[in-house]
């Protein structure tokens, strides 16, 4: 049985007793507090400990209307039941309007218990409903926030009434303001990337006809032509005869994920390439170190255990010195290469391309004169860039000297150098009219260390192009080559401009 706690506002002591007696007769389980003035009423009602207020309509310097006003001001909504002597209909109506739940005449007190129970159960039902609504609103707010954080929108379509419902986040994903317009199929379709519209429409049609659920990924195009990637799905609810009646779905904005994916793929590809480079590098180094060592072992064996004539003996000693020097040279090369790879951030300065060309042609002037070489440099578009002078100088030097070295017989070498500007990089191209390279045959190893694939041109260790590639890559750039045998070769170098 419910237990109540009443606040009884009554100045007449006997009347108060009567009320209490009537409630006891009705077997109500209750406790009560009797107050007879405004101050006590206000104090008590503020405790929030009462289930209902039973009030006389008029006390000295205080009345029911004022009491109701106090309750309203304090947002107290518990049932307020007026218990009064005879009163006019108008007054009764006024008091009810002011918030009283019921009024009971003092000579009809037997009605009181039922009235109280009625009022309280209505009040509790109302409170329940309010809590329910509050919770529902709170959890909806939570859901909205969660959707927003996850860039996840939800939607619903009633296929029978044609009514669409979109969550706030769904509007946003599609580039609208929440509630901007009526959600419908057209407003959805018009946001799909034209390349994917047909695909999405047929997936939806197909799902409605045959499926229980479906997911797919596609692109949206929102304001400013901005492209988004989304993953969307839906569940198809069907009536007993299999007809689709409702669709419940989601749309997840995965643009950030996609972008991150792309970046990761690129980084992975880069890493794999670098790793392959390193593997090749270490193979070559170990091989090129071993070759002279094998010769040293061979010669020392001959010197120590085979009978040799004096001339022969001296000859082998000479060979030995040469080979040891060669070995030393390789070790120094490795040191240079490793140093080149690592020292990129030191000493960047503005490198003027024309100055480099002038400097290089000066140092090669004999070679140029002998070969009749012509070097055309076009730096009208870009005169230079901030970078490591030593690296850029080496690139220019190696490519120019290669073009002169690998010229066609009886044809003077012509080398065209050009610099172009891209939004965030500079492109240098070196084109010659030399013997060209069979890229099908040698392309793979072109930039390899110690790779000499033209045995006639025995000078040089085959490090030039390897160093060029190492230096370009150390600057964050790329190098590409195209060539036609007996016509010429062109190198393209792209160097990023850092902000």
């Amino acid at each position: 049985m419910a237990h109540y706690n009443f606040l009884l506002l009554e100045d007449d002591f006997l009347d108060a007793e009567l009320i209490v007696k009537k409630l006891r007769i009705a077997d109500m389980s209750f406790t009560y507090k009797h107050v007879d003035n405004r101050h006590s009423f206000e104090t008590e009602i503020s405790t929030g400990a009462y289930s209902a207020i039973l009030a006389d309509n008029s006390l000295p310097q205080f009345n029911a209307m004022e009491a109701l006003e106090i309750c309203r001001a304090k947002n107290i909504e518990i049932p307020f039941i007026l218990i009064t002597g005879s009163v006019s209909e108008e007054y009764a109506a006024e008091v009810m309007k002011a918030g009283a739940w019921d009024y009971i005449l003092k000579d009809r007190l037997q009605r009181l218990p039922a009235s109280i129970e009625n009022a309280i159960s209505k009040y509790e039902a109302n409170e329940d409903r309010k809590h329910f609504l509050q919770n529902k609103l709170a959890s909806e707010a939570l859901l909205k926030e969660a959707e927003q954080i996850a860039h996840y929108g939800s939607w619903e379509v009633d296929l029978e009434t044609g009514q669409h419902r979109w969550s706030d986040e769904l509007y946003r994903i599609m580039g609208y303001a929440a509630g901007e317009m009526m959600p419908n199929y057209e407003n959805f379709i018009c946001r799909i990337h034209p390349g994917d519209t047909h695909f999405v429409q047929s997936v939806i049609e197909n799902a409605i006809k045959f499926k229980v659920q479906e997911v797919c990924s596609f692109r949206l195009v929102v304001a400013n032509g901005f492209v988004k990637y989304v993953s969307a799905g839906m569940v198809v609810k069907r009536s007993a005869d299999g007809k689709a009646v409702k669709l419940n779905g989601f749309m997840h904005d995965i643009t950030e994920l996609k972008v991150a994916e792309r970046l990761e793929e690129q980084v992975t590809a880069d890493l794999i390439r670098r790793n392959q480079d390193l593997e090749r590098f270490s193979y070559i180094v170990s091989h090129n170190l071993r070759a002279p060592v094998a010769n040293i072992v061979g010669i020392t064996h001959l010197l120590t255990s085979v009978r040799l004539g004096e001339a022969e003996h001296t000859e082998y000693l000479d060979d030995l010195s040469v080979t040891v020097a060669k070995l030393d040279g390789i070790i120094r090369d490795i040191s240079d290469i490793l140093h080149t790879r690592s020292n990129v951030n030191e000493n960047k300065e503005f490198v003027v391309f024309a100055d480099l060309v002038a400097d290089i042609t000066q140092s090669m002037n004999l070679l140029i004169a002998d070969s009749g070489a012509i070097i055309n440099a076009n730096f009208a578009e870009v005169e230079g860039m901030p970078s490591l002078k030593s690296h850029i100088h080496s690139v220019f030097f190696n490519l120019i000297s290669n073009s002169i070295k690998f010229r066609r017989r009886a044809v003077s070498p012509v080398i065209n150098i050009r610099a172009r500007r891209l939004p965030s990089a500079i492109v240098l191209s070196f084109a010659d009219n030399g013997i060209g390279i069979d890229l099908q045959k040698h392309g793979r190893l072109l930039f390899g260390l110690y790779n000499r694939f033209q045995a006639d041109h025995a000078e040089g260790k085959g490090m030039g192009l390897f160093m060029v590639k190492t230096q370009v890559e150390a600057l964050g750039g790329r190098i590409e080559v195209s060539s036609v045998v007996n016509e010429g070769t062109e190198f393209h170098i792209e160097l990023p401009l850092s902000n």
Partner: protein
Amino acid sequence: MGDIFDFIIIDDDKLNNKICHKIIENTCGKVEIASFLRAEDGLEYIAGKYSVCDPGCKAVILLDINMPEMDAWDFLDEFANATRQVKENVRICILSSSVDQGDMARARKNPLVEHYLIKPLSADAVRMVIDLLNIRYSPGAR
């Protein structure tokens, strides 16, 4: 009794060829040794000399792996197209400074390669090749 074999050294390293020459002479005595810095030149020579069916007209090649223009693998591919006679007369060993497992495995897989020798060529290695191919060498050599 085995046949007398000529030696053919194919290697772009002049010094190596000189050393091999000396070692082979010391081990086998008087024997014909030809050396080539370019694998193509070696191929030409072999096609010319060993396609004839002459008794005692046999050779063993000591083939280096890493050479510009045509390396050992290219050479072996070309050699596979040679006449049956040439392939009967000429046997191939790889002689390389490489101790790389990949290279050794690749050589093992190739049916034309009889053996993989590691530089520098030693007298023992020469003797082993001789025994392997049942080569007869002139007496009195050491």
